[in-house]
């Protein structure tokens, strides 16, 4: 089950890293979300964005997403800000695809960086 869940997100993930995300049509915020679980590699304030490390086995991939001000970010049930996230945090991010790439709708911190 966990494997299925992991694999389900990977095609979208690879589309993104391969540049396919830039060619994808903007399906708007109501399109089926892309969900990623990964470790934050970088957090940027301007432009607001995240880089996640995820993958299958040792085949690791980077997922880049912008984080608009409207994105809901939480940890342990409490709302937090993008600046509260740190490299090494494990997060689950629900996104939608736009012509400019992935855009985060909701980010949940599952485990703080050790």
């Amino acid at each position, binding site marked *: 089950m966990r494997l299925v869940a992991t694999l389900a997100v990977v095609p979208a993930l690879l589309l993104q890293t391969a540049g396919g995300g830039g060619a994808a049509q903007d399906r708007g915020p109501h399109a089926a979300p892309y969900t990623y679980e990964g470790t934050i590699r970088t957090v940027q304030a301007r432009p607001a964005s995240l880089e996640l490390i995820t993958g*299958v086995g*040792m085949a*690791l991939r980077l997922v880049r997403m912008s984080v608009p001000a409207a994105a809901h970010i939480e940890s342990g049930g409490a709302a937090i800000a993008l600046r509260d996230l740190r490299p090494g945090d494990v997060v689950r991010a629900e996104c939608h695809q736009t012509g400019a790439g992935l855009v985060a709708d909701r980010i949940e911190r599952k485990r703080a960086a050790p």
Partner: protein
Amino acid sequence: MRAALLSAAAAAVVVAACAKPVKPGDPVRGLTREQRDRFRRGGEVFDTVFTAATGLGPLFNSTSCGECHEDPVAGGFGDEVEVHAAAFHPGAPCDPLVHQGGPVIQQDATPALKTALGVEREPNPPDATALARRTAPVVFGRGLLDAVPDSALLAYADPEDRNGDGVSGRPNHFFDGRIGRFGRKALVPTLGEFNEGAFVLEQGVTTPAIPTEETFGGRPLPAGVDPAPDPEITAEIVALTDTFVRFLGAPTPLRPSAEARQGRDLFGRIGCAACHVPALRTGDSPIAALRRREVGAYSDLLLHDMGPELADICLGDATPSEFRTEPLIGLRLAARFLHDGRATTAEQAIELHGGEAGGARTRFLALTPGERAALVAFLKTL
């Protein structure tokens, strides 16, 4: 507890001596006819040599699974050594350098890529703080190891060394937070993921779950160098390969001589079994042949600090000097030892153990020559 496990492992050998032994390359006992058929067909895929036309590359380490896992049979050791890279800066999370092609740096390329880029292999990441050499281990018994529940591994974890034995194993975690156990740094949580990832990393063969190629040092591959449409193999091919690896049995240890029995006792007495836990028990697998079985793992599948001499890259939570306890399944078949193959004998490998294993090494070196020989004789039964 570990002494009891050593006894359990010894008892398992006695029981196995009565049953038909599992030879290297044999499937686990108790498979159904259909499962044995899929094991056989999976073995054919395992040995299938890919070409550029059928999906190989453009970057790769090997042309087939069996090229690296081959000695003495499919699923065995290989003499290939691959290169991994990462960046470690104390106080910061380990960076596997995915944006620069890491952590696995492919050592070969198809003629089309060589021509297009004028290269022979993927470059080492410029930001790497270390490179690691990795030999190809046996994959025997990995389905059994996959079926051991996380709780069994966590029962051996002692990150704060509360029992004061100098050994403080801890689990690694994959990037999504799950506990890892496969790979020399115990990064990967499941065998299925490890196997599927290996198609892309080692052979450049894309799969339905990973339908795009590796990058070249983090840069996209040039157009026209990859003639096979993605994904280059079907989910059924992946599943057959996974079935073959999953069903490869752990070879039955050889019947121990009196000397080897003495060595087995010493193995427990000097502390080797603190990390090389002799027996693990599988959980409630959907596959009856893997369900609630004792596996002579000789590993706790946890990370242990092995000291600065063996240190190379970080990966996940693992620091450069932390490695997963290597399972000793099929050790008698090994020609080289340790994660990078630097040791040519088991005795040399023990002498190179440091960090948490330093105490066991010291006690090994304090043994008489005859006792050391007995311990090595025991290892040669595994």
